[in-house]
């Protein structure tokens, strides 16, 4: 019995790896175009945050923390763009239905999608984020950066975006997704997070708003990246790790439920 279970698990693992390999092949073909797509937003952020906002009175010390939010903005766009493709697939090509017939549990199939999104976000966002750092070299101090912590937080953040977008894909129907997702979900989630405001300054400005920002998972991603890379007053790293793990677990449960509901509405 145990032997049979082991064989099954090994078989699942092979299918899982095959699916991931396929997605990496697709990514290889698209990577150059996607990197070019991402260059303009990054350079625009470098220009605005590094060179224009300080002419209008923004403190130089805010440039680094504000630019750290760019990594999340990019991840957000990349994951949304991929979620759109998946939603189109569910509506038109329905390649997903073919994948459901593969000898793979639903949870592992979802894990394949989440991993694919995570790999895409990492391959596109990290080089572009790195591109901006030399351009802001004299304005950002990375001497105290903890790169291991940064990689950990970045991967957890990428997973968060992957799960969040997958949840939206399976939770909402095509028309609602297309017409309302940006206005009613994505804009509020992103704009009311510490990716846009610094948590410490916001809580000094309004303690209530500071507490409310803690309900938003993106706050932990943004503050974690800042705490890992920069010197300053940010949320502690352990709190960011804990917050991201908590919200990722929550999203995984919600995602499984919404998938089951979308496949079997009765």
């Amino acid at each position, binding site marked *: 019995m145990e032997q049979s279970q082991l064989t099954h698990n090994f078989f699942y693992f092979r299918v899982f790896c095959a699916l991931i390999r396929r997605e990496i092949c697709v990514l290889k073909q698209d990577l150059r*175009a996607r990197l070019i797509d991402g260059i303009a937003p990054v350079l625009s952020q470098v220009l605005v945050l590094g060179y224009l906002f300080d002419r209008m009175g923004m403190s130089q010390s805010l440039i680094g923390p504000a630019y750290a939010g760019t990594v999340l903005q990019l991840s957000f766009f990349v994951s949304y763009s991929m979620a759109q493709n998946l939603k189109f697939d569910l509506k038109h090509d329905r390649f997903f239905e073919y994948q459901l017939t593969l000898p793979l549990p639903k949870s592992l199939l979802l894990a394949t999608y989440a991993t694919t999104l995570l790999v895409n976000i990492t391959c596109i966002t990290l080089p572009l984020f790195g591109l901006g750092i030399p351009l802001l070299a004299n304005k950002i101090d990375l001497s105290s950066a903890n790169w291991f912590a940064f990689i950990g937080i970045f991967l957890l953040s990428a997973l968060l975006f992957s799960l969040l977008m997958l949840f939206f894909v399976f939770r909402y129907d095509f028309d609602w997704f297309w*017409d309302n997702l940006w206005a009613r979900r994505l804009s509020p989630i992103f704009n009311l997070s510490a990716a846009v405001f610094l948590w410490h300054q916001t809580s000094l400005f309004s303690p209530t708003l500071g507490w409310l920002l803690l309900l938003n998972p993106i706050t932990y991603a943004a503050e974690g990246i800042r705490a890992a890379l920069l010197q300053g007053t940010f949320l502690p790293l352990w709190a960011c790790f804990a917050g991201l793990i908590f919200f990722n677990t929550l999203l995984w449960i919600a995602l499984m439920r919404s998938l089951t509901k979308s496949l079997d509405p009765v």
Partner: protein
Amino acid sequence: MILKNARVFISFLWRDWHCKRKHLGQWIINFTLLYPALYCFCFGYVKPRILFPNNPDTMSTILLMGPVFLMVLIVTFDLSLDLLLDLDEDRFTEYQTLILSPRLYLLERLTFSTLFTFGITAPFMPIAKFILGSHLATPGLSWPQYFLILFTSSLACSAYHICAMCILTKSSQLMSLWTRITFIFSTFGGFWVPRAVLMSFIAEYSSWAHYLVFINPFVYITDGLRGATIGGSGFISPLLCALVLVGFTVITMLFAAFFFKRKLDHV
């Protein structure tokens, strides 16, 4: 002939309105309630007070004009999207161009898109003023000028997106349109900072390149909106901005007609 064309033109306008009316509630909730409330809070209140504590009220107005412009861009993009998707799939456009000339058909799309966008985005600033009150500095506010700029912005952005949809060949290019063209034009078009700040920055590196800013049509939208709300000599006159935007619309629609004809006529 003219009367017949006019009747078909109005019928098409009526059809477009009939199609959009089904989702009008969603449009109103999203664009006249949710977006204004969110952007007023973020760009009009919290962000200027955290990032620019020395001059938050004026910065509120400067920053808030970016989202007004963004909303015009989003709505006109959504409305012109049908033009590309339809030519990809149903090709209902081909039937429509059998009974109305392609140029008049594009003009009809432009008219509908402009009127609809203006109607949807017009309440933004009154709502922002109502919510933010004195936190939004509007010393030189002129409502007629503001609405004139908003109308011509809707016209120019509609023309820009209609032209883009006529040039693009497949829907997968849409993301590139945003990231490679619209994003760059917006950043150098005063989305985040006023034209004068942008020009003073470029002037430090080149003695002539800062004049290139005037080629960008989006500069006239953002500067016009800021000029109509903040006033003063730091912005281009809103009336001049409106004139330039109308000129841009005419040129863009001529390009759109050229590419649209090529798309329909396969020979």
